[in-house]
């Protein structure tokens, strides 16, 4: 094996965090011009391996050979200097700065006198957007005005704009829809044509087969295998990842009953959306689908009291209720796992256990004091059910892998045992095994007569899980598909309908 | 010179003396060592003790940081260390009484210098003078300079501080005799030059008729002067201060300030050290050893007495 064959060779990489080994002699070899997928369950160590590569973490052991030379990268600046960039799993935009400033941070254009050339930065940013066909983001907008999906696209554009030789993409598609995914893939194809290597991390198997050349599988911090994508079928891949066979992903049994649990009439919220009507039946999974920016999140957030005043009516169990805060919603048996995990989902610095119990604490206290024992048992039950991978529930959530953080959010809401569980992009960043687990839990809940509203941008998930589907576009309800009408085509037709 | 009032009287017997030590440790607790006068007083005390008694007297110097509780805590710490005698410049007339009480309870004699607490039954002796008189001297001087009528602006030290209260009382006593003098404005400037300067600048701008500025210390007086220096008002406003710090003395000589009032740090220092020495050797001292304030004007500013 000649060195020149690979642009990157990582071997024997090991890493421990406070005594817990998270990477154990892992290797990864990447050829120039290929899309190399790194796959594994949540917490397998994918992000950690990549952070070691770009110098955010220091490895305990191992060597990294890049372009035939052994390198020691101590910080991200050095990684940039040798031509390695990374799209991070946890988006970290600088909210108060503009899109253009974010993209060119650290390499600003200067005017003749040496000041920052804001104009040029905007023009160049616009050029980058035009190249990939992004039209909904203004270079002069502040990052905090963007949706998660838009933020993700900015990060992609930024990473690509460095003209690096190796680009790491850590779950770049976890918060964007098919439309943007297509844009991303055309970017990737253009890059590989220029012999740029891409390390691609994703839990979406379809994408992997669509875009990648070879696959490296990690499991529990250990290297399992590297194969050409062509030579590896889906079942085999899942078996390598999970360590066992995985039967049907989706549970299709319909538990809908005829009685209506919640109904929403003419719900309107400013310019965000208008005249949304739907009914939610007992034991039903109501899917909500739409393209990015359609206003789905806004609808469910309004129902949950997060978006202030609304017009229209909300009925729960036939009784009209007024929801002016999240507390009102929770009192009425509604729970919402929001799409913005970091912003509204978790408390990064607080222990996992405290995160899980946060919305249910009133029921775990006596005379104001938290019943530690009860808290422990109950949080352990939901946590285990979701297979949260953590050394201890006393650790801060911030030390968890992205997927496991998402599980903590779900655990928090499951604990409240709601009648109506609303899930906004619930499986974002979650591995296939855990996904199956979550689907099973949804099934269990509905079989117990609970109702679920699921907002998702993943077509297979929406198709596989929903008993009915409401399609939203441009803040309008485009129609509700009954169980037997559901198909990808019918959904797309509703979206296209004007 | 100041009146010496340290006639000695027969044998006394304090606990400290009974031990008949070679050297004594004296705790000196000043309410603030960042105030210029207090820093000067400390230096004079240490100098005099060193010169006169050499190694015989050792000092532990504490800063009360202009906070009653801090000063009391410091005295508690001195008591814990079992010093032989405490000299204190109290921050507050009332709030330092518990410290005096604590010292007395621990059998440690306590002298007050410069400022005094309100309870004169407890302490061994006070060296200094009634602060009221300094206010009287300064206001008297300004009132005469104004010809008994006109507007005076009054600059206060930190509110609630004992010397501020007393100087204010003294000034008020004089004002009762001058019905034609009006206090046009008052401001709390915390002994601080820059604050005094700002206040006077603002009053001048307001178009207020100002004939004199009464300042409760020299720093503020110099700040007040800086505010009018170079303006049309220079030389038309009478300004007085208290403390006779070197800058102010020079300003009096130059005619920038009408007066300052000498608080005699040197004499206070020597008197209190002498008193301490006596107490430590079991001798009696007067309960009140007066070191009077003295008015300094252009007429007497060159006296050698003020200049060393």
């Amino acid at each position, binding site marked *: 094996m000649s060195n020149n064959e690979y642009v990157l060779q990582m071997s024997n990489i090991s890493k421990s965090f406070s005594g817990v080994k998270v990477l154990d002699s892992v290797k990864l070899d990447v050829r120039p011009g290929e899309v190399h997928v790194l796959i594994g369950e949540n917490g397998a160590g994918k992000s950690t391996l990549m952070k070691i590569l770009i110098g955010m973490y220091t490895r305990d052991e191992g060597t990294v050979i890049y372009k035939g030379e052994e390198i020691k990268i101590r910080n991200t600046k050095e990684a940039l200097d040798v031509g390695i960039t990374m799209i991070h799993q946890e988006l970290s935009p600088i909210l108060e700065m503009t899109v253009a400033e974010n993209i060119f941070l650290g390499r600003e254009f200067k005017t003749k006198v040496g000041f920052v050339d804001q104009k040029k930065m905007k023009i160049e940013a616009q050029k980058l957007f035009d190249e990939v066909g992004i039209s909904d983001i203004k270079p002069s907008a502040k990052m905090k005005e963007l949706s998660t999906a838009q933020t993700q696209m900015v990060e992609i554009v930024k990473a690509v704009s460095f003209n690096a030789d190796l680009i790491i993409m850590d779950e770049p598609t976890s918060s964007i829809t098919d439309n943007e995914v297509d844009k991303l893939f055309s970017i990737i194809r253009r890059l590989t044509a220029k012999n740029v290597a891409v390390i691609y991390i994703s839990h979406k198997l379809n994408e992997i087969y669509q875009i990648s050349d070879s696959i490296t599988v990690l499991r529990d911090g250990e290297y399992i295998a590297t194969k050409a994508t062509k030579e590896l079928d889906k079942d085999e891949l899942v078996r390598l990842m999970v360590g066992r066979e995985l039967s049907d992903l989706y549970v299709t049994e319909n538990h809908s009953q005829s009685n209506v649990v919640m109904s929403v009439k003419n719900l309107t919220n400013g310019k965000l959306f208008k005249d949304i009507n739907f009914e939610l039946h007992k034991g039903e999974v109501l899917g909500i689908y739409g393209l990015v920016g359609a206003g789905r999140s806004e609808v469910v957030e309004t129902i949950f009291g997060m978006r202030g005043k609304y017009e229209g009516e909300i009925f729960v169990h036939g009784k009209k209720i007024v929801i002016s805060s999240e507390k009102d919603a929770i009192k009425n048996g509604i729970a919402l796992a929001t799409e913005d995990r970091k912003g509204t989902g978790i408390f990064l610095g607080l222990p996992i256990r405290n995160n899980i119990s*946060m919305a249910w604490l009133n029921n775990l206290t006596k005379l104001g004091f938290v019943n530690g024992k009860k808290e422990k048992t109950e949080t352990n039950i939901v946590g285990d059910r979701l297979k949260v991978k953590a050394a*201890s529930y006393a650790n801060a959530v911030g030390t968890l892998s992205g997927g496991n953080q998402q599980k903590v959010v779900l655990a928090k809401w499951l604990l409240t045992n709601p009648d109506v569980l609303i899930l906004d992009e619930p499986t974002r960043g979650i591995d296939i095994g855990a996904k199956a687990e979550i689907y099973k839990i949804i099934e269990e809940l509905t079989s117990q007569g609970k109702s679920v509203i699921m907002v998702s941008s993943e077509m297979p998930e929406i198709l596989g899980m929903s008993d009915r589907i409401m399609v939203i576009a441009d803040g309008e309800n485009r129609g509700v598909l009954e169980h037997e009408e559901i198909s990808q085509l019918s959904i797309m037709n509703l979206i296209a309908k004007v | 010179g100041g009146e010496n009032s340290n006639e000695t009287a027969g044998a006394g017997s304090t606990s400290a003396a009974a031990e008949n030590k070679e050297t004594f440790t004296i705790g000196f607790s000043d309410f603030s*060592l960042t105030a210029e006068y207090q820093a000067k007083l400390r230096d004079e005390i240490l100098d005099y003790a060193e010169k006169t008694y050499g190694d015989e007297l050792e000092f*532990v110097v*504490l800063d009360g940081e202009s906070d009653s*509780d801090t000063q009391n805590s410091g005295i508690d710490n001195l008591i814990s260390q079992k010093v032989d005698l405490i000299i204190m410049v109290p921050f507050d007339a*009332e709030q330092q009484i518990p410290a005096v009480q604590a010292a007395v309870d621990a059998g440690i004699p306590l002298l007050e210098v410069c400022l005094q607490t309100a309870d004169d039954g407890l302490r061994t002796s006070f060296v200094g003078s009634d602060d009221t008189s300094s206010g009287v001297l300064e206001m008297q001087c300004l009132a005469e300079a104004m010809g008994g009528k006109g507007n005076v602006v009054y600059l206060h030290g930190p509110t609630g501080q004992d010397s501020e209260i007393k100087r204010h009382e003294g000034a008020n006593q004089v004002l009762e005799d001058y019905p034609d003098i009006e206090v046009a404005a008052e401001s709390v400037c915390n002994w601080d030059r820059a604050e005094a300067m700002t206040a006077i600048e603002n009053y001048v701008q307001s178009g207020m008729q100002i004939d004199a500025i009464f300042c409760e210390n020299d720093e503020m007086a110099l700040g007040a002067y800086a505010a009018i220096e170079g303006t049309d008002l220079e030389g038309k406003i009478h300004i007085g201060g208290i403390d006779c710090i070197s800058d102010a003395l020079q300003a009096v000589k130059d005619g920038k300030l009408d007066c300052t009032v000498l608080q005699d740090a040197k004499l206070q220092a020597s008197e209190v050290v002498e008193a301490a020495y006596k107490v430590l050797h079991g001798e009696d001292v007067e309960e009140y050893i007066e070191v009077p304030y003295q008015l300094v004007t252009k007429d007497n500013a060159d006296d050698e007495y003020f200049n060393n």
Partner: protein
Amino acid sequence: MKEKNFDLGNFLRKFGIYFVLILMMIILSFLSKSFMTVSNMMNILRQVSVSGIVAMGMTLVLVTGGIDLSVGSMIAFAGVIGCTFAHPDPSYPLIVVILIGLAAGALCGLVNGLIVAYTGVNPFIATMGMMTIARGATLLFTNGRPINDLSESFQFIGRGTVGFISTPILFLIAVCIISALILHKTSLGRYIFAVGGNENAAKVSGINVKKIKIFVYIYSGILCGLAGLLLASRTNAAAPNAASGYELDAIAAGVIGGTSTSGGRGGVYGTIVGALIMVVLSNGLDMLNVSSYIQQIVKGIIIIGAVCIDQFSKGKDS
């Protein structure tokens, strides 16, 4: 097994600053023979009582991500208001005086809390405003003069002893216990951490963020009320200019003890250690007869050093 591992780590994290305090005390007891005596230890505890009580309230405020600059003024305000009813004649029962003092503090705290929770004004500005307002009100009320002539019974709360322990120490212990229970054992405490950790997530979890914020400022106010009474009783007079600058000491005690000024992290045990470090340092340097100017230099260096050691003992992961 794994659970255990972590606890050790956590213990070490917390240990850092305890270690600094113990080290400091050991060194001082070698340097000065009068340092490590029962009477001096009591002395230290008595000295820490007022600042420790105030720092407890500050800790809760800091954990929510707030700050309370008005503590010094609230202490003076509550002391003065309380002591107006503490004269020997007419004499009111001690409990009335205490309640009035606490109420005065609580009132200021309530205003702080309302402003912070409802107007969106930065806590720094809100409480800095209150700092000025409460001080002005105190001066106006007393006309700048201390309130003295306090009753025997009132003097007891700051200067009395129960058994051989001074009453202020008992108050400090009580406040410690109550604060620790609130912050570390109740759901209220959890919510306080939640608000500081991620305000949006707290709201989404159904927590009434406004109520929590108002609570911590009131709590801080009440403790300042208590501190004001103790201070007045200790010094035998309620001065309108008392306790200025206490805010920095209280914040420093919290921060030295590991409470984050950006919220979400901290605890009352650390705070009491932080407060002790500062008092022990002053006491020790006084004992060693370090001149007051040099004391300031040494204090600054040691406080930075203490936090430094603490930081290193925690490792790089925070």
